[in-house]
C-alpha cells in the first residue's frame, strides 16, 4: 500500500527587503536569547570541590556486612561475569574469613549479586569514585577484618 504523500508546502516567495528584515528579526531574537542566557546561573557543578547528592538507590561500590554473611556463595554464583571471589573456613557456626574480593575491572554494576543474598548483608552503596593508576587496585577487598572474628578495638 502506498503511503499517503504529505501535502506539499507552497513554494516560499522571496522578497528582497522582506528577507533582509526577517533575517535581522530572527538574528536579533537569537542574540537577545543568548544575552539572557549569559546572565543565568550556570547549571554545572565544580565537581571535585562540590560533590553531587547521590540517591540511596544508586548502584555504586559494594558494601558487605561481614558479621551477617554466612559464606553461602550465592552472590558469587549470581554474578554474570564472575567477579566475586571468596574464601573462608567454617569452624562450626564460626567463619574464618580469608578473602572476599570484587574485581571492578569486570563488574558492570548490575546489582544481580545483591538480590540472592539470604541475609541482605551485601548491598551496593553510594560511593562511586574509584581512581588508581594500577589495575590491581580495582580488585577491591570487601573484608573489613580477616580471621575468626573481629578484633575488639582496644
Amino acid at each position, binding site marked *: 500500500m502506498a503511503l499517503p504523500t504529505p501535502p506539499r508546502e507552497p513554494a516560499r516567495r522571496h522578497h528582497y527587503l522582506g528577507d533582509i528584515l526577517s533575517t535581522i528579526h530572527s538574528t536579533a531574537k537569537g542574540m537577545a536569547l*543568548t544575552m539572557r542566557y549569559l546572565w543565568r546561573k550556570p547549571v*554545572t557543578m565544580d565537581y571535585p570541590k562540590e560533590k553531587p547528592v547521590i540517591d540511596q538507590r544508586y548502584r555504586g561500590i559494594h558494601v558487605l556486612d561481614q558479621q551477617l554473611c554466612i559464606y553461602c556463595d550465592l552472590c558469587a554464583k549470581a554474578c554474570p561475569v564472575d567477579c566475586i571471589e571468596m574464601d573462608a573456613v567454617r569452624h562450626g557456626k564460626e567463619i574464618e574469613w580469608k578473602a572476599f574480593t570484587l574485581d571492578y575491572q569486570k563488574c558492570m554494576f548490575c546489582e544481580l549479586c545483591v538480590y540472592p543474598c539470604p541475609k541482605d548483608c551485601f548491598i551496593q552503596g553510594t560511593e562511586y569514585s574509584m581512581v588508581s593508576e594500577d589495575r590491581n587496585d580495582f580488585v577491591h577487598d570487601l573484608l573489613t577484618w580477616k580471621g575468626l572474628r573481629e578484633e575488639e578495638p582496644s
Partner: protein
Amino acid sequence: MPGWLLTVWAAVVAMVVVFTFLTIMVMFSVWMERKVAGFIQHRVGPMRAGGFHGWAQSIADSIKLLFKEDLILIGADRKLFQIAPALVMATATAMFVVLPFAPGWQVADADLGVFLILALASVTTIGVIMAGWGSYNKWSVYGAMREAAQVASYEIPLALSLIPPILHYGTFSLATATEAQAGWGGMQWYVFSSAAPVAWLSFPLFFIAALAENKRAPFDLPEAESELVAGFHTEYTGIRFSFFFLEEYAAMFVMGAVGAALWFGGWNFPGIHLLEPGSALLQVLALFAFVAKAMALVFVMMWVRWTVPRLRIDQVMTLGYKYLTPLSMAVVLIAAFWEFGLHLIQD
C-alpha cells in the same frame, strides 16, 4: 648614532611592544571567549588554572602548544606549509602598526591606514589558502577552497562599508579620523555625528563583513570543525598552529579597533576635553577607552559566534553577493549624497 641604526632600533622597539600587547590581548581574548561560550551555555568555562575563574588557562595552553611536536606530512608542500603560518602571523602583527591607541601612541600614522589594514587582511586570506593547499589533506583543501570562494563575496562589502566614515572625515588615517571625533566633550563619535543615520546603516555591513574576513562564526567555513575536522589548519601542530590561533584573535581585535576608531570615537571618552592634552592621565585613559571599545566589539563577535549557526557556502555567497554588496553600494551612495547635503547646509 647613524640614521639607519635609529630606524632599526625604533622598529625593534615597536615590534617588541606590538608583539607583547598582541600576545597578552590574544590570551585574554581566548580566555574571554571560553568564558562567554560557557556562560551562554549555562556552563562556567575554565575554572582551575591559576585560581580565580581559570585566568591562567591561556598561559597554560600556550606553554603546552609551544612544547608540542612539530609535524609536517611527507606529501605536504613543505615550502607552502612553512611559509603560510609565518605569513598569516606577520600580517596580523603588521595590522597593529596603524592602530591609534591613544593620542600619539601609534607605531606609524600611515596616511592610508584603513587601506593598509584592508590590504593586509587580504594577505591573511592568501596565507590560509596556502596552508590548506600545502597540507596534503583533503579537508584542508576543502577549507582553503571555501576561503577562496568566500573571499571576494565579503572583501568588496568590507571595503565599501568603510567608505562612509572615510568620506565624512575626508581621511584614510585612523588617527586623523579619531581626532575629528573629539568634539562635544569627546562624544562626537561618527555614530552620533551629523551623519549618524549613515553611520548606523554602514556599521552593521562593516561588522558582518569583518566577521567573514576573520573567518568567525557564522562564516567559519574554512575551519568548520564539525565538517572538515579543523579545515585549513587540520595538519598544523604546535607553534605553527598557535600562529593561526593568534592570528584569528589578533584580526578580531584589529577589526574591532577599526570599528571603534571610525564609528565609535576611537580613544575619545566623555570628559576628554577637561584633561590637559598630552598628560599621562589622559594618555592612559584614552588607551583604556580605545582597548575597551575594541574589546566590546570583540565581545559582540563572540556573542554572535555562540548564537548564530554556521551558514552553508551557498548561503555565504548569497549573503555576500546578493545582499551585502548591493547594500554597501547603496550605503556609499547615500553617504555621498548625505555629505553633499551637509556641505550645502554649511555653506
